[in-house]
């Protein structure tokens, strides 16, 4: 390498509790270079950044293997503070600013310039007066470097959201020794024009000799500003590219890759038909924090397994939560030709829909109650089943015998591993808890089953079982299944069609056997040249 690298990673590996998240990563950044790191959710991007920045989460979980080199010297970064001293800065996805402070105060936070006064002579340096004049000049200089024309005396709370990111960047470059700045998906919360501005600022910084690590999944931006590109997939560095010799298509294809083979799925008696719709969403909006759905349109065919894919934060998770009435929704949902009353969980349940939440412990289960109760409670409340009459008219009590028999049956059918139906679900493994959630939804005998992230946080063996179960529900009982998942490959193994969600809208619908390139482009919000599906 002609120039010496500011930062070099050699053979970095990291595992959390036996799960390998990074495998033999090699990477180097030169001064003035913008190096982009792209990959799907869970590819290991964040872990890599935490590692470089010395976040405690890395050391609390047993450290990592391999070496980090700065200017050719091995360094041990054990805390963010040390990383800062070495000249590594970080611009976070969420703003870490104090709204009630001015821009200057935020930039200089904890690095204030001071001058001595009478009190400090007696009581020590902590009583020194702040040197506002110099601090403002410094801030001004940093803001000018970014080409930003905001007043350094305004309160951060009064700034437009897009500008807050720049204050963070200004803080990083104001540090005298700033050599490398990590941008962690900086454009995720910005509007288009603001993002352009940020890219310009990044180029400006690079021109001044600062090395930049740029994490993103917006492929346009990668092509726009980066010099070199690393693609991560499942914790491995699959390709190191130079921008001049690659294309958006190639990056997209490398990013997705293909792991699972679509197994042989059992045949159906009747194939889903485009004219037989069970559910239509029109101009559907959901206010779910972090997963906003904006003007979403979708037609679901009776009896199919439809996948909802896309990156985290793009709104795919919000759809099921909105339809089921758990988050405020607006728009039209038409089930079997009838408009569904929105924002009413009872109405959704009455429309023969059931939901397995992505938040298993938070929404899906009563952790301290027994397996049996978890399975039947929703059926009792929504459909008044498992109740027996008493001598008093109108008063009905829990039918213990029916519940016991039903629980025993479904535990056997779904192969839930437990000691007995009275065991609290808290003591079950993740996979078995998920089966309890599925049993709860299944007991409602739904026509449409919404499943969100069904395999999150459960081990690989259990994953396959859960997917098999969904196929079983679909083929055996004709349930229409709408499955939301961050793992595209999982969707591609069992779904008939996959709708990709980007910025709260459908970016496109693909067949599971569409090319990796098409999937990669669509999750990044770009249309493939040729329309598919």
């Amino acid at each position: 390498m002609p120039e010496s690298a500011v930062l070099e990673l050699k053979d970095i590996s990291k595992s959390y509790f036996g799960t390998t998240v990074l495998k033999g990563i090699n990477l180097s950044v030169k001064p003035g270079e913008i190096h982009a790191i792209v990959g799907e959710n869970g590819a290991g991007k964040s872990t890599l950044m935490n590692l470089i920045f010395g976040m405690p989460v890395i050391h609390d979980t047993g450290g990592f293997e391999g070496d980090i080199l700065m200017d050719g010297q091995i360094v041990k970064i054990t805390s963010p503070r040390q990383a800062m001293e070495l000249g590594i800065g970080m611009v976070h996805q969420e703003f870490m600013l104090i709204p009630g402070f001015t821009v200057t105060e935020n930039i200089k936070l904890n690095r204030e310039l001071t001058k001595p006064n009478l009190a400090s002579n007696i009581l020590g340096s902590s009583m020194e007066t702040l040197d506002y004049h110099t601090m403002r000049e410094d801030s001004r200089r940093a803001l000018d470097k970014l080409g930003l024309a905001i007043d350094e005396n305004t309160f951060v709370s009064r700034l437009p959201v897009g500008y807050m990111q720049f204050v963070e960047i200004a803080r990083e470059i104001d540090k005298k020794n700033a050599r490398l700045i990590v941008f962690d998906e900086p454009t995720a919360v910005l509007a288009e024009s603001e993002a352009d501005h940020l890219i310009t600022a990044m180029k400006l910084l690079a021109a001044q000799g600062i090395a930049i690590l740029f994490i993103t999944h917006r492929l346009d931006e990668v092509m726009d500003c980066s010099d070199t590109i690393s693609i991560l997939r499942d914790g491995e560095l699959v390709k190191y590219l130079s921008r001049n010799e690659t294309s958006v298509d190639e990056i997209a294809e490398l990013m997705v890759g293909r792991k699972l083979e679509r197994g042989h799925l059992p045949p159906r008696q009747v194939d889903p038909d485009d004219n037989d719709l069970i559910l239509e969403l029109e101009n559907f909006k959901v206010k779910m924090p972090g997963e906003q759905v904006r003007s979403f349109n979708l037609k679901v065919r009776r009896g199919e397994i439809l996948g909802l894919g896309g990156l985290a934060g793009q709104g795919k998770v919000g759809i099921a939560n909105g339809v089921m009435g758990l988050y405020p929704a607006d728009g039209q949902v038409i089930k079997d030709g009838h408009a569904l009353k929105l924002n009413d969980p009872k109405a959704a349940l009455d429309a023969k829909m059931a939901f397995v939440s992505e938040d298993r412990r938070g929404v899906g289960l009563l952790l301290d109650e027994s397996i049996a109760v978890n399975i039947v409670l929703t059926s009792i409340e929504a459909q008044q089943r498992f109740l027996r009459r008493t001598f008093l008219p109108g008063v009905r009590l829990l039918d213990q015998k029916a519940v016991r028999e039903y629980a025993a049956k479904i535990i056997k059918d779904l192969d839930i591993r437990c000691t007995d139906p009275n065991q609290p679900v808290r003591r079950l493994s993740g996979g078995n808890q998920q089966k309890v959630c599925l049993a709860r939804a299944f007991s409602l005998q739904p026509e449409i089953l919404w499943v969100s992230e069904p395999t999150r946080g459960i081990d690989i063996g259990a994953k396959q079982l859960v997917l098999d179960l969904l196929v079983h529900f679909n083929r055996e009982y004709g349930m229409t299944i709408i499955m939301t998942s961050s793992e595209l490959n999982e969707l591609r193994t069992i779904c008939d069609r996959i709708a990709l969600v980007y910025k709260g809208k459908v970016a496109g619908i693909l067949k599971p056997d569409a090319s990796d390139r098409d999937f990669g482009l669509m999750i990044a919000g770009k249309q493939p040249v040729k329309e598919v599906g």
Partner: protein
Amino acid sequence: MELQMTKGKRISDPSHLRDFYEKFGLPRLIISLFLLGLFMLALIMKMDITLLLSASIDRIGMNGLLVLAMLPTLVTGVGLNFGLPVGFVCGLVGGVISMEYNLTGFTGLFTAMLCALPLAIISGYLYAALLDRVRGQEMMVGTYVGFAVVAGMCIFWLTAPFKNPAMIWAIGGKGLRVTLTLYEHYSKVLNNFLVFDLFGVTIPTGLLLFFAFFCWLASLFFQTRTGLAMIATGANPMYAKSSGINTRKMRYLSIVISNVLAALGAVVYAQSYGFLQLYTAPLYMAFPAVAAALIGGATLKKATVSHIVIGTILFQTLLTIALPVTQTVLQGTDISEIARMIISNGMILYALTRNERG
């Protein structure tokens, strides 16, 4: 909530013992042993055990309903009903109205309850509306609502147009007295119903039956659809919501039920005590009830009827036995009231600092 399983376990099974221990819990085991020790001590000191036992049983029945009032709010996750005085004063108003018309015996008792009922429902609803606005701080706000209501009622007791000379101040002829004796009205009608002596211990059958009846009702209630909805609301509000349960309605309902139980409990308490205590007497009514529920093993996360029953028995027996015994042992020193305060408030403190399992 647990299903009754068909397969039985033998008592001798060691896992059975461990199950029992896990269910019963260490605090209750310690208190039970402490109680046992006190009984031994009382025997050694040659105290009248039968008298102590009679008093204990009396107090269990007398306070049972007030402790049971803690159950609905605990189940729905509203927390301990520190606003117990809200319901309690409704019971007192009912009691006073019944007395005004010189009703006696069971007629007097049930009239008092019937008069208290609508008052408790209305005030319970208003109280629930208030608690709904201060989610997460129900217990603290409830405490002060209780205090405020008791203070406000002082004005009512003074100005209410009651005429019965047995009730109003002899001088001035206006305003109710601080303590009204029920001796000629419905004092101890429940206590004396089917009362009998067992080895010298007086068993107030009616009183115990009344408490048992309400416990039975409560356990049945939590097997109905509404009751189960309440359990779900408390255990996981999001699960409840996703099951189509109106969690806010369940919280309202639980507070109203708790308030009604407190009102009925107040009437039972008064008839057993023999007096209606007005003005500031209901001020600290909530604390012994809270302490009893917590001693019984109820936590802010989970509570059942059995916790309430066990708690009432342990706490009230402890109070009635510990004080005379300690007084006899440490002759001459009057620590009864101090000990009562330490035990009940200490227990509340202990339980509230441990949000998980009691």
